[in-house]
């Protein structure tokens, strides 16, 4: 009890004197704010990117690609194969008995970002009518759905925000053809929102393709047993060389390379900055105790123990660190949360648009980093403070 009281007393005195040492204290706060700010904002990018891909697809749906292909771009599914796949009993049907399967074409079109001129690989998806029943998360927020057999497209909201000329009513020129944008859609912030969709048949003739790239379908039985039945049927059919993946599995794979790259960048920069900030915190806390030598020695002389002195210095460092962490995290949240950007996903070779996501767990992670830096930076000075020989310290004053 007495020890606690002592700790409280000294710590309060320490904290109250922070304003007189504003300069050095500010160094700790700013230094740690820098680390946490950079860490949180870079990781917010990777969280946003992973979130976009992770929220794509449902476990009850599968994507079928040519065996050996990891992405739609390198896959190829011939028309007769696509028909065959749709007719399999393991695929769900709608009320009218039509299979919930959409054979799709996935090509890329060159579009500049808003206000720029250089082309970007924007994914263009030709879908069959069942696509909308399969992906019921898709909702139109503006305009209407394209008419079958006509050169009309609907555009994901993120694509429409990132790339030029994708507003309802605007005309875009791909291949020897002009297409009209007739609608804007959302689909829960997933990867399809970076895409342009059109009728598969029209797209195939315009892009002079004779085959599809993938077939997306709803499983009749979404359990592992249902999936096994589908895989089994396909494996036994000599006409088919197709690999089947649940959608979430397929899209999670695409997040790996780029997501890891951003994480590595964020953490390595933050580690370096944190080392720098530790030196800053050490400096500050050393000078803090240097300026309080006499005070500390006096306390020791009148009977305060060593432990309260150590703890009080540590607490001061932690309070400053926490302030820095909160400042850095707050700034990152203020400036970046929800900001959107797009980049080339190496796994699909096409653009994917996503938002920075400054999540609560990221902010907590930032504060933890701040506290660790504060603890490391406070420990050595705290020990020195407690070891200070009382008489020598009093004499310096």
């Amino acid at each position, binding site marked *: 009890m007495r020890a606690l009281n002592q700790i409280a007393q000294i710590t309060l005195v320490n904290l109250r004197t922070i304003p007189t040492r504003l300069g050095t204290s500010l160094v700790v706060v700013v230094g740690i704010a820098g680390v946490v700010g950079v860490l949180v904002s870079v990781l917010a990018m990777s969280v946003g990117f992973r979130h976009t891909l992770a929220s794509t697809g449902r476990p009850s749906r599968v994507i079928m690609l040519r065996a050996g292909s990891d992405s739609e*771009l*390198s896959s190829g599914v011939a028309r007769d194969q696509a028909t065959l796949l749709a007719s399999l009993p393991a695929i769900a049907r709608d009320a009218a008995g039509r299979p919930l399967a959409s054979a799709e074409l996935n090509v890329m*079109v060159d579009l500049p970002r808003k206000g720029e001129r250089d082309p970007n690989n924007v994914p263009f998806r030709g879908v069959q009518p069942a696509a909308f029943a399969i992906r019921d998360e898709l909702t139109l927020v503006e305009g209407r759905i394209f008419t079958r057999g006509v050169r009309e497209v609907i555009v994901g909201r993120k694509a429409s925000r990132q790339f030029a000329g994708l507003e309802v009513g605007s005309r875009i020129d791909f291949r020897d053809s002009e297409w009209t944008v007739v609608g804007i859609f959302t689909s829960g912030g997933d990867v399809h929102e970076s895409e342009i969709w059109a009728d598969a048949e029209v797209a195939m003739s315009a892009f002079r393709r004779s085959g599809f790239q993938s077939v997306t379908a709803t499983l009749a039985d979404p359990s592992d047993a249902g999936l096994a039945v589908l895989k089994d049927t396909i494996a036994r059919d000599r006409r088919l060389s197709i690999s089947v993946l649940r959608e979430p599995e397929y899209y999670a794979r695409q997040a790996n390379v780029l997501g890891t790259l951003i994480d590595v960048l964020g953490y390595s920069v933050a580690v370096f*900055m944190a080392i*720098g*900030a530790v030196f800053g915190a050490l400096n500050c806390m050393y000078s803090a105790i240097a300026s309080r030598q006499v005070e500390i020695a006096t306390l020791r002389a009148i009977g305060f123990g060593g432990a309260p002195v150590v703890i009080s210095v540590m607490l001061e460092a932690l309070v400053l660190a926490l302030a820095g962490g909160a400042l850095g995290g707050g700034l990152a949240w203020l400036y970046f949360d929800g900001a959107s950007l797009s980049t080339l996903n190496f796994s699909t070779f096409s653009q994917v648009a996503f938002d920075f996501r400054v999540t609560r767990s990221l902010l907590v992670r930032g504060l933890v980093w701040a506290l660790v830096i504060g603890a490391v930076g406070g420990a050595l000075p705290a020990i020195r403070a407690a070891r200070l020989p009382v008489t020598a310290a009093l004499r310096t004053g």
Partner: protein
Amino acid sequence: MIRLVWAQLFRRKTRTVLTLLSVIVAFLLFGLLQAVQVAFESGADTADAGRLLTTARYSIIEPLPMAHARAIERVPGVVAVAFADWFGARYQNESNAFPVFAVDPARYLDMYPEFTVTPAHRAAFVKTRTGAIAGRRLVERYGWRVGQKLPIASEIHAKTDGSLNWEFDLVGILDAEDPAVQGNTDVVLINVAYFDEARQFGRGKTGWYIVRIADPSQARAISAEIDRQFANSPDETKTQPEKEFAIGFAKQIGDIGALVTRILMAVFFTILILTGNTMAQAVRERIPELAVLKTLGFSDRMVTGLVLGEALLLLGLGASVGMVAAVGVLPALNSNTGGRFPPLFVDATTWLLAAVIAAALAVVIGLPPALRVGRLRIVDALAGHR
């Protein structure tokens, strides 16, 4: 004089060493991040002004007929034409472990004189139909040996028997002297003669053309003329100087430069506050000593110079050590990422930039206390501090 500055700087060892360490870390980070940025932009920097790139007009993934080569060769001002096709490699079950291009060996190697291949390797590649040459960093990373079989699967191209598993003979090694170019050699080149004959689909098509022109100042006119050859055909083209293509491609990834700059601004702002505070504190403590120096006959300007010199020394020392550390760290980093990522290196511009930043920081940090000290009146200084 220098000894005096040195003595002042290390008056309080712990404080100076700690400050110095944070400056070192900041510049180490600067060196590394600049290297990343340079690597991203190296495509544009190493571009040859005498080379154009012809791709399909609407998307770079669309194939073009090989027959385009003859038409491009006939365009006035064109000296040579090479082409390459994307193989879509999967190696040891890793998708796109490295790029593999199907090329005409002689045409392709002639197009890139900055690549180095021994004459024996080149000859072997030209005459071996199933031959392949690989970048030196890839060879080192995977422990390949010239003469071995190279089993590489394709995610795109099946052989006539329907199999996606291909096998090539590694007959040579591709390298480059310039580290900025070396990233471009992180590829496996295979002989198109064999590839085109053995593939099931897409025969007679290729991915893109590389065109050498005699006069780089004519690049735009010749590009337009090439595209005019195929206008309104089913296979329209888009031709642009190699540099423009590289810049455009880097932009697809996004503005790496802006990201790096923002991070570095945060780093240096922190350093500014940290070092500035330390300097101000150090000078404040020393006011009586400086007053004594003035009493001994040091002029105002000399005392100002002393303090400013101290800031310069601190930043200069920290910046040099940090940059040297960055240079020292990079080779280890590169050998771990061989082929996955272009080689990182610290170029001359980065050194220059580091020097400028260090000097600017030193002035911003050192000037205010230096001027204050210069204006110091001896009597006040000595009186105030006792």
